[in-house]
């Protein structure tokens, strides 16, 4: 028997054959094992709520999860949109849920809403980035990792009764490729039944004509295909939220009490809250998580890695491993770095040489100037010396002449004086004598 079995094995057909079992083996407990493992691990679910301030996001969360998440009322006068994540640990039966509710605070308040969508997109991308980084680590602990990627985005539409607001359209277009969008009509107790029908048709029409991809409940799983298909036709859900309880009949139900009647949150005639809870939490929560991981996250990862230069296969269509590509990139990067360093160093050396030459030039020029000035000075000095000598000579000559003239003068005077005395002495007899010139 063993030999023939072995033969059969060696000529095994490429496709696995389905065999029937002779008895109960027990691997039908695999799903249970999986379930008990995941129950021990706990689940995490992240919801992003986008809508105008005061539209009822916090109230709806409280109503959905039947508890009171402490949130403070936001003001209308925030300058920009900021995202506020808050994580809560919930437990039901023996299942632990790590629920993170992220609110886009200040959305829709500003006068200029051109950039309102950006903080939201950035936040979603940042969560993807964190997960990607964890995935790329050498030592990673993905089973332990607190997954913060947004699994569902509840987009709250204002119940104007006409159509979507322009901001809604712009924002949803930016988000539809990054997150599962579930549009809901908030504060639906202000729209009557007929208006609601028209409003829903108008909204879906606008979404389709503008190519916005909203989350469709999956219809491939037989167990839930039918109910999901029915629910898909009711999108977007018109919800009313309330944490207050009102007595209706002999029961206390969550409702809103108006002077003209009581709107019961869980009455399917009044609003689609029950449908939303069913779809979001009871039926499709796991599918939302899966879609986020397999579709939105993969798309992000694909784009990001492409950006970095990775490819799935090179020219020879040999599959590249991430490691090889990474190494190649790293080498390239380092060589690039070295080259740049060399360049910079070369440039620096050149500059130094240049400056040196310049300085030398200037030194030489300065030297020349100095010499030139010196010569000029010498010239001047010489000239001045000459002039001085001339002057001295002239002064000497003048002095001599002066002395001579003086001497002559004094002689003449002396002579005249002598003559006079002679005249007086010789009496008046020689009056007519010749005067001595």
């Amino acid at each position: 028997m063993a030999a023939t079995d072995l033969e059969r094995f060696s000529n095994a057909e490429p496709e696995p054959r389905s065999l029937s079992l002779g008895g109960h083996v027990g691997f039908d407990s695999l799903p249970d094992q999986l379930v008990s493992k995941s129950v021990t691990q706990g689940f995490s679910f992240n919801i992003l709520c986008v809508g105008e301030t005061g539209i009822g996001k916090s109230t709806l969360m409280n109503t959905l999860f039947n508890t009171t998440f402490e949130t403070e009322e936001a003001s209308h006068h925030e300058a920009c949109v900021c995202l506020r994540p808050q994580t809560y640990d919930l437990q039901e039966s023996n299942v632990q849920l790590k629920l993170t509710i992220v609110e886009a605070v200040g959305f829709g308040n500003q006068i200029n809403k051109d950039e309102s969508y950006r903080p939201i997109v950035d936040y979603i991308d940042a969560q993807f980035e964190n997960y990607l980084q964890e995935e790329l680590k050498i030592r990673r602990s993905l089973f332990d990792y607190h997954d913060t990627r947004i699994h569902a985005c509840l987009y709250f539409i204002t119940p104007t009764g006409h159509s979507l607001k322009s901001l809604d359209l712009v924002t949803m277009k930016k988000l539809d490729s990054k997150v599962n969008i579930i549009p809901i009509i908030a504060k639906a107790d202000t729209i009557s039944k007929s208006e609601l029908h028209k409003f829903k048709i108008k909204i879906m029409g606008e979404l389709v004509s503008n190519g916005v991809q909203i989350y469709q409940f999956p219809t491939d799983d037989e167990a839930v295909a039918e109910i999901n298909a029915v629910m898909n036709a009711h999108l977007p859900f018109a919800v009313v939220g309330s944490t207050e309880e009102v007595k209706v009949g002999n029961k206390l139900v969550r409702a809103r009490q108006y002077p003209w009647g009581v709107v019961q949150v869980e009455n399917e005639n009044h609003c689609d809250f029950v449908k939303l809870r069913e779809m979001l939490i009871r039926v499709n929560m796991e599918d939302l998580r899966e879609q986020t991981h397999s579709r939105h996250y993969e798309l992000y990862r694909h784009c990001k890695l492409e950006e970095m230069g990775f490819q799935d296969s090179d020219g020879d269509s040999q599959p590249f491993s991430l490691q090889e590509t990474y190494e190649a990139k790293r080498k390239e990067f380092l060589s690039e770095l070295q080259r740049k360093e060399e360049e910079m160093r070369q440039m620096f050396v050149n500059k130094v040489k240049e400056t040196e030459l310049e300085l030398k030039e200037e030194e030489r020029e300065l030297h020349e100037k100095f010499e030139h000035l010196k010569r000029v000075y010498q010239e001047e000095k010489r000239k001045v010396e000459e002039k001085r000598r001339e002057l001295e000579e002239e002064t000497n000559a003048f002095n001599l002449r002066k002395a001579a003239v003086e001497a002559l003068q004094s002689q003449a005077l002396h002579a005249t004086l002598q003559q006079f005395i002679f005249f007086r002495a010789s009496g008046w007899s020689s009056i007519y004598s010749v005067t001595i010139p």
Partner: protein
Amino acid sequence: DKQDIDKQYVGFATLPNQVHRKSVKKGFDFTLMVAGESGLGKSTLVHSLFLTDLYKDRKLLSAEERISQTVEILKHTVDIEEKGVKLKLTIVDTPGFGDAVNNTECWKPITDYVDQQFEQYFRDESGLNRKNIQDNRVHCCLYFISPFGHGLRPVDVGFMKALHEKVNIVPLIAKADCLVPSEIRKLKERIREEIDKFGIHVYQFPECDSDEDEDFKQQDRELKESAPFAVIGSNTVVEAKGQRVRGRLYPWGIVEVENQAHCDFVKLRNMLIRTHMHDLKDVTCDVHYENYRAHCIQQMTSKLTQDSRMESPIPILPLPTPDAETEKLIRMKDEELRRMQEMLQRMKQQMQDQ
């Protein structure tokens, strides 16, 4: 006795009747502006207030078209009559306000429109032929505040601050059927606080005289305490408790528009139409228009003293504060005039003598 009383009776007590007769003959006009984001029920409310459908063939834009929409000003004028009194009602609509993604200064077309109407009236009033002046000035602006928020939004504050010195603003909380009574109270308080905080001057109801009867005073007090009015409008008539009423039909009940316990629609209608319509017109004429006129004249005179070549739109321009140079000129001219007059007199005398 009756004859005695008759002799003392002068008869001017019939003046109010005469005024009444003349005004009925002349007819009234009223211009109402409605402003607020799309989808807050403005057209429905106007329909409910005046019980006529002014918006039969209007086209609503889709979300895509509204991304960069500009604000338009649309006027609808209708002539309606009730018990012999004719009213020429003009509703000024502002489609596109607050609908675009970037709404910076989206109230500018509206302030320009209001100013234009003032300017038009100013020119007409200063013209030579004033028999048939058309008064297109906006007498009242109903501003719709969204009930889905926690109070005023930046665009609401911006609009009201741009217009509160030009037009009577009556703020309303729209689509109030999404708020339970406690929420309405909280929201009204919040809005009143924010109006004070941002320094917005909304239309104030005039104080009633101290000699009015208690009932009237009580009504007046209630009116003032209910502002801003939380209104609901409806285009349809439904059957409730065996009666046909104007209202909205929900699976959980029927909202009656004219039920004071449901909303403040009746208060708004009484205030706007039945008691305060004329006061709104008076405040527009006496306060807003006069402010505009004074401002305009001041600007013109300051411009004129700088640039005398500018053409003034009105023939005679009184200078409020003549400066020294002009005074001197005036005095000189006066002197010259006097001298010439004297000369003329003398010449006349001479002629007479001859």
